[in-house]
């Protein structure tokens, strides 16, 4: 399982199909949340998923690191198929970072300890190294001076940037963002988006569920529109915004761009 980390530097070429989703279905009881999803994402691609609430977009990205189980079809992340096998789940989670809508920082640990927790206990990095690395990422998200504070002492925007740094400290190959700006006040959205744009520029594979259409336009390689548990449309942003094919997409864009 450690070979994934070591092989990272070797793989200069972008690996095609780092995430492959094939004919995936998911049910909550009898409710069909995700219907026959098919998607291939290459390394270094930046995907934005949008759609009305309840369309299953959050559920979908939570399936990619197995916070939710799918019942049919296949999900293959970096050549590892997600099954009930705990070892597979653990190795996938090590390679996939996730940022939540409500940050989910650990309130009993300082910012630095939040960042170092997983490198130390999962990657078995020496503490000094882990801390140095964490400080680097905290600088990258522009809050190195808050390292020894507790999450409760930070603003929402700062907390979300810490959450991004915490995910990055595991040096993941893929980052998942689950509506990272929806719980933030308007003036804090920008500081988080800036960090995400900077990250996109560095070549990270990103899947981002968001309503920030400006962000989609600037950084996305592809925009995916979901509705009713299905992928309705999939297109590069230029095409998606100027010339949507499906009626449902047009309707959604009209509603969201009216303001």
């Amino acid at each position, binding site marked *: 399982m450690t070979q994934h980390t070591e092989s990272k530097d070797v793989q200069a070429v972008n690996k095609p199909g780092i995430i492959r989703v094939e004919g995936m279905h998911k049910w909550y009881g009898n409710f069909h949340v995700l219907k026959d999803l098919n998607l291939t994402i290459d390394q270094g691609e930046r995907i934005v998923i949008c759609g009305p609430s309840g369309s299953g977009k959050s559920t979908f990205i939570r399936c990619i690191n197995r916070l939710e189980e799918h019942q049919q079809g296949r999900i293959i992340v970096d050549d590892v198929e997600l099954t009930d096998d705990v070892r597979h789940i653990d190795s996938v989670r090590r390679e996939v970072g996730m940022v*939540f809508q409500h940050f989910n920082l650990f309130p009993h640990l300082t910012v630095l300890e939040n960042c170092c927790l997983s490198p130390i206990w999962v990657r078995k990095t020496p503490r*000094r190294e882990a801390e140095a690395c964490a400080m680097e990422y905290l600088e990258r998200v522009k809050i190195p001076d808050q390292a020894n504070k507790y999450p*409760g002492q930070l603003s929402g925007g700062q907390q979300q940037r810490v959450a991004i740094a915490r995910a990055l400290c595991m040096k993941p190959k893929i980052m998942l963002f689950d509506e990272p700006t929806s719980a933030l006040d308007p003036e804090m959205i920008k500081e988080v988006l800036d960090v995400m744009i900077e990250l996109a520029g560095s070549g990270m594979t990103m899947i981002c569920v968001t309503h920030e259409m400006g962000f989609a336009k600037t950084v996305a390689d592809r925009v995916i529109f979901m509705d009713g548990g299905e992928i309705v449309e999939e297109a590069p942003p230029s095409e998606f915004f100027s010339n949507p094919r499906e009626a449902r997409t047009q309707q959604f864009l009209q509603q969201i761009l009216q303001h």
Partner: protein
Amino acid sequence: MIPPGLTVMLFLQGSFSGRGMKKQTIDSRPTGPKPLYDPRVRALFFQVISLAAVFWVGWVLIDNTLSNMQSRGISTGFGFLGESAGFGIIMHLVPYDATMSYGRTFWVGLTNTLLVSAMGIVTATILGFVIGVARLSSNWLVAKVALVYIEIIRNIPLLLQIFFWYFAVLSNLPSPRQSVEVGGALFLNNRGLYLPGPVLQDGFGLVWGAVVLALVAVVGVRVWAKKRQLATGDIFPTFKVSIALLILLPLVAYFIAGRPLEWDLPALKGFNFGGGITLIPELVALWIALSLYTASFIAEIVRSGILSVSQGQTEASKALGLPNGLTLRLVVIPQAMRVIIPPLTSQYLNLVKNSSLATAIGYPDLVAVFMGTTLNQTGQAVEVVAITMAVYLTISLLISLFMNLYNRAVAIKER
């Protein structure tokens, strides 16, 4: 003549009349309200009135009490504490016999209260945590059994449970001659529970030395393991090694020193047992009932503490790749403990207070000995009640002090 709620009534009247005046402050001149309408003056006035009322009530009570005591021929003061008590107590941790003073009976009662409380706290905590975790177990049967236990035990009065263990179970045990016996060392009969008592021989010092050595070694291993982790990142199984050290070193020393520990086994002598340690049935019944009862409350506290850690926390931890065991240890338990400790300490306090039910079965605790027999013999109601209440108040204040310190130490920092 003076109802106890008088202060409250005065407080109430004062504030009601205050409401009437408030409307008129609107008309008052811009130079500031007259003293009568100044809220600060009024507040001061009410406070002085209520304080005076409290003092007055206190004075009337004291006056009544003094005249009542005089007419009944009871002297006042704490002089009685030095007089000889003249009654025996079935169990005492401090040396005591009937010739000793009433003051001594206080210490006997207090130590007995503390003994049963400490025993109860230890067993209730262990049992409560086990049952609380069992309640959340993925094993359906275990979870249901824990639920049934909690729902039955905590809905039945503690006094009834104490009676049950004392009068229905322990009194129905066989006589000493037909004792329930475990391995020839532990005997249970209607006279109590008999345990072997340890007798330390020469050379046991070596074992003590080994214990100290093991403690030092554990500290050393922890420091070393942390250093190594800092340097290389390898995680050393500190916990398992510590436990092994703590058990093995004293054990080895014990054998090297030639097994310098003998057990004084209880043995039947005539109609009763002698030797070893005796727990009288009153203590056993009280201990069992207090432990079982308090454990059912602790179990619920533990359960709700663990459930209080939000789903988002476990999800975030899993998303970071921490496996279930580490998620529990590094994320869930540290947060759950903050929720668990405050109500847990108040359960401990309840246990200490509930140990006073000892009176009902004759276990000589503080209330039974001091507030019971001593008070009856001396008639010094005011002094005895005051001392007893002061003891419980002190215990309560000490426990709340500890709890506040702990809360301050672990409080999650907020803006």
